[in-house]
């Protein structure tokens, strides 16, 4: 029997003064993972943008549960978006969106 891949949902917050959109935030996270862990690591992370709230500068991404720590490290290592200083903080991590929304409340 094929085992279903476990996932982790991460609620993130961007600290940056520039305007953001879905493509920019996902590209930033993907390129951070790619820069730190290469193509092989990025392929294992299986990243997907789930939700983006531009007014709160928060977003939710999904990754493989085995790649949680590398993805978290890549997110923490982000210091700029589009060449301007920025930081991304992890607000919460969970195995389901429901539990994540309970954890972070405001997402």
């Amino acid at each position, binding site marked *: 029997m094929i085992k279903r891949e476990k996932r982790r949902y991460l609620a993130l917050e961007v600290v940056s003064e520039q305007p953001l959109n879905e493509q920019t935030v996902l590209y930033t996270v993907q390129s951070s993972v790619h820069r730190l862990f290469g193509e092989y690591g990025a392929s294992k992370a299986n990243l997907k943008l789930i939700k983006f709230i531009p007014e709160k500068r928060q977003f939710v991404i999904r990754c493989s549960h085995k790649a949680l720590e590398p993805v978290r490290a890549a997110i*923490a*290592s982000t210091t700029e978006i589009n060449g301007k*200083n920025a930081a991304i*903080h*992890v607000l919460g991590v969970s195995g389901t969106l429901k539990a994540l929304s309970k954890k972070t409340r405001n997402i």
Partner: protein
Amino acid sequence: MKRFADLHLRVPLKDNPKAESMIQKASELGYNLVGIPLSPQTTREQISQLRHICSDTKVDFATRVNFSPRTPNELLQSLRRFRRKFEIVAVRCHTKDVARQAAKDRRVDLLQFSVTNLRKRFFDEAEAELASQALSSLEIELAPILQLTSFSRVRLLSSLRREVATAERFKVPITISSGATDELFMRGPRDYAALTTLFDLSMSSALRALSDNPWVTVERNRKKLSADYVAPGIHVVGRKTGD
């Protein structure tokens, strides 16, 4: 629940609003204790101002001094003069002699090494053996990992990997701190723990380096600096008040 500590939050002492926002950010990120480096000439007013900001934001505050001596004698002089004025003493070792002296001196809490000149990272087996006997910790700052790019970061990570393995072999406590000078380089403790996996520090060791190890250092020093401390294992339990 773990109590996290950042023993090296480099807040600008002359810029009060920025200092306040950085301490506030540390609190929001989940730190219970911040160590702020002060110069030996820092006035009592500045310290009480910082203490006030920290108590407002519900973060414990530890005073810290960083020494960068050029010779072992200079280090000994500084320790003699200032050890009892600060809760944490960190030594940035620029020469091997200073590194050896700092590692064997029980008054030194944290050992720091250069992040740009990797030839000046003297944390080898001999250093680790001395440090393990004197209870000093190896301090690893994570802001340089965020700031450096490409090959300089690769070289630093490689060096850190070797040092962490040596420290673990000789049971030298590791302390992870931010070394952040700006809010943008501050991250939560679990994010830092994830970053340390880049130099092969296990998640449990990383969390210990962010919580238990710094707290043990600060609490040990607070006991030593208290008026009731006599010698290791001996302290005053009560005083007779008048006749």
